[in-house]
């Protein structure tokens, strides 16, 4: 069985679709492990929204299951941020804050634009607005909660900071997106939330030598390979089967 090559599929649909797919998968890993039962429900809601977006986007690029289950690691186009392991709840929330703020702004622009993503983005932007609100609420509570939670949240924000720059690399096919404007508004928004949460905006670079555009070019971090191995194993064990 040959896996579809990335070059035959629209790059933008893969980039956006893989972002949503991979983050949804990571959030799905929380099932049965959330810090409080109410968050089991909340995290699953977000994961389901993202999975729905992923399915629509991947279908624009080909067969959703072939793309999700039969591509090799190097053919995935998601940013490295979304593939980062869940860590503790603070890491998950920091990842949510960084990504949902980006996704909300990006989809807002796409919804107003005239690419083939406009319709999808108009619907998704409402979902993502809720994701961002969820992340913000929890960033405030963890940052401005106890000394322990403050320290954990600060550590998480700092650890994931270097994966944030990649999100603003222009994506081929998303014409009309103002990437530099996006970066500036994102930064202002995140800085605002972190400030209200009594957290410090991390000082380090927003991308390392590797992270600038790496995920979008198919270069991922080590945990991603194991994530895919788990995700794809069953599907690949039964070539051609339907489920």
């Amino acid at each position, binding site marked *: 069985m040959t896996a579809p090559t990335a070059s035959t599929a629209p790059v933008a649909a893969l980039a956006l679709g893989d972002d949503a797919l991979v983050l949804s998968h990571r959030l799905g890993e929380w099932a049965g492990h959330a810090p*409080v039962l109410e968050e089991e429900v*909340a995290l699953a809601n977000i994961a389901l929204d993202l999975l729905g977006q992923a399915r629509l986007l991947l279908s624009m690029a080909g067969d959703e299951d072939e793309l999700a289950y039969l591509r090799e690691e190097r053919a995935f186009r998601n940013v490295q941020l979304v593939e980062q392991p869940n860590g503790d709840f603070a890491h998950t929330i920091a990842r949510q804050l960084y990504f949902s703020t980006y996704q909300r702004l990006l989809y807002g622009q796409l919804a107003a634009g005239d690419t083939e993503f406009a319709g999808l983005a108009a619907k998704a932007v409402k979902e993502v607005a809720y994701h961002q609100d969820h992340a913000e609420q929890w960033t405030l*509570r963890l940052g401005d909660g106890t000394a322990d939670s403050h320290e954990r949240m600060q550590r998480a924000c700092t650890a994931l900071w270097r994966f944030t720059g990649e999100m603003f690399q222009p994506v081929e096919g998303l014409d009309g997106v103002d990437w530099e404007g996006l970066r500036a508004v994102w930064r202002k928004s995140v800085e605002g939330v972190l400030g209200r949460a009594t957290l410090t905006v991390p000082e380090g670079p927003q991308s390392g030598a590797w992270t600038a555009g790496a995920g979008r070019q198919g270069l991922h971090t080590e945990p991603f390979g194991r994530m895919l191995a788990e995700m794809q194993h069953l599907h690949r064990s039964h070539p051609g089967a339907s489920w």
Partner: protein
Amino acid sequence: MTNTDWPLWEVFVRSRRGLSHTHAGSLHAPDAELALRNARDLYTRRGEGVSLWVVPSAAITASSPDEKDPFFEPAADKPYRHPTFYEIPEGVQHL
């Protein structure tokens, strides 16, 4: 250790515009903002609502079952409050 026993909230859902909010159930949340969000996630997963209220359970004053008779029975013997109490000759319309 801080008190982690989040208080209880009662959730009221307006299922669609034009209807009043109806009690849907309860949940735990540390504060009103999260109570509202938890209510959204828990009680409107299948599109059950267009508006939500959350109220701290402790803020509700309820009538007591012991006072049921003095509270509610006096209303039961006033049939003249109901339209069916009145006899109207056949053929009279719009009444």
